[in-house]
């Protein structure tokens, strides 16, 4: 059993989606995350094990390599694609409750900012680490964040911004959420954001990379 989990984890780490996928070249012609996940389920490997002992391990490795600038956005995207392909097979087990997610994370790019690449990367990394992610999209207003947090109690929330000019919007939204939901856990990120800015606006967590956010979230439910 552990052999196939290791194979799936490798597929996630190196971004091998399925057998037909040409990427990465060194795994050409081999089964990918798609085939191996199906096979593992057919062999009776519990879906929970596939998630936590294969997908999450692979995603964690990519996250760490990304943080260390050993890989870049394309590799992370391929890994995320391999992961979401595997997740399709696990979906019924999430719905039935056989697989438990760690919690819920709500994410959106703040009002006034239409950029979504960073937000999408974070979404994929957090999902790949066993969290349910509610993606509110881009140009998201404070009220929309608050409404989503009321709907998903105890959810964590993440605010993304690329433009330096929308940092003011991030500050405003953080303050509105804090006023409406005092115990909210708010994480902020994006190219112009720093730890100093995070502290200044009263957010709870900042990470310069997605893996740091995953580690923060995991630490909150450990």
């Amino acid at each position, binding site marked *: 059993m552990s052999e196939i989990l290791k194979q799936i984890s490798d597929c996630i780490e190196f971004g091998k989606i399925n057998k037909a996928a040409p990427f990465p070249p060194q795994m050409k012609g081999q089964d990918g995350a798609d085939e191996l996940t199906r096979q593992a389920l057919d062999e009776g490997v519990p879906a929970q094990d596939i998630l936590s002992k294969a997908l999450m391990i692979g995603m964690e490795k990519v996250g760490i390599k990304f943080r260390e*600038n050993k890989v870049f956005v394309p590799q992370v995207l391929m890994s995320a694609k391999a992961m979401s392909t595997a997740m399709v097979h696990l979906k019924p087990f999430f719905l039935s409750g056989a697989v438990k997610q760690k919690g819920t994370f709500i994410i959106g790019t703040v009002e006034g900012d239409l950029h979504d690449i960073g937000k999408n990367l974070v979404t994929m990394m957090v999902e790949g680490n066993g969290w349910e992610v509610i993606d509110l999209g881009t140009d998201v207003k404070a009220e929309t964040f608050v409404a989503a947090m009321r709907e998903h109690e105890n959810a964590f929330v993440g605010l993304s911004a690329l433009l330096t000019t929308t940092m003011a919007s991030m500050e405003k939204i953080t303050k509105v959420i804090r006023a409406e939901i005092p115990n909210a856990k708010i994480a902020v990120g994006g190219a112009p954001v720093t730890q100093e*800015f995070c502290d200044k606006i009263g957010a709870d967590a900042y990470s310069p990379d997605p893996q740091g956010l995953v580690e923060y979230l995991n630490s909150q439910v450990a």
Partner: protein
Amino acid sequence: MGKIIDQIKQGKTMVSDGAWGTFLQQKGMQPGECPEEWNSSHADDVFDIAKSYIEAGADMIETNSFGGTRFKLKKYGLADKVFELNKAAAEISRKAAGDKFVLGSVGPTGKILMMGDVTEEELYDAFKEQCLGLEAGGADAIMIETMTDLDEARLAIKAAKENTKCEVFCTMTFEKTVDGEFRSMMGIAPSDMIPTLIDAGAELIGANCGNGIENMIGIVEEIRKVNSDIPVLVHANAGMPVYKDGETVFPETPDEMAGLIPKIIKAGANIVGGCCGTTPDHICRVREEVNRMNYE
């Protein structure tokens, strides 16, 4: 007035303009507004920006068209206005430029080819449409900038080259990795971009945004190690942004930027200008330094 490239080949160092986006905000543009829409709704304000850089001594100015592809304009419901907004952008800068050059700004689409967001053909068509508008409005060159993906950059260059008579330039955006190397968001090093951009038809390459002028020196040196001929342009930020009292501030002063101009020219840059946070004051000081260097 000839071509920009010809002037560079004669050994002249040239000065480009400074920031547009941050300048538009000073003029009252709100977050969430479409900058390119201002070419029709606030043409006078856009003209003021263009003019202020000419008055500061720039040899060339860009156009307010960075997000002018259908993919970006679609987010504001303006996907059917690509040609007219880009044409207007170039007309405004043309009018302000007089006998100086106009660089038609083309930024990335925000779509990722390898994720299957778009096809190569769709990207090519979108860039072609934008470039045609810029050429119609009087752009001398197409300035493809802030690219991070080599394939998207290549398609933009080809679209400009194959469909307009403009000179075609391309700069990418690099950041310093933890190991101290320069890489784009997509993992491309300055030395990696050279063959692809030149093969696609770029007559000038370089770097913009992402860095203050200090890191740009390292980027230019890396390019020059591999290629000593290709003209190189740098549009540097006024340092990295700091957030202060509800406002984002770029800390590098005109004097600080000007102080590094001799170094970046010695490293091999042929055109120097600014990106986010730089102002006409920065360009004015850059002009003085470049004049001094050209004179020497």
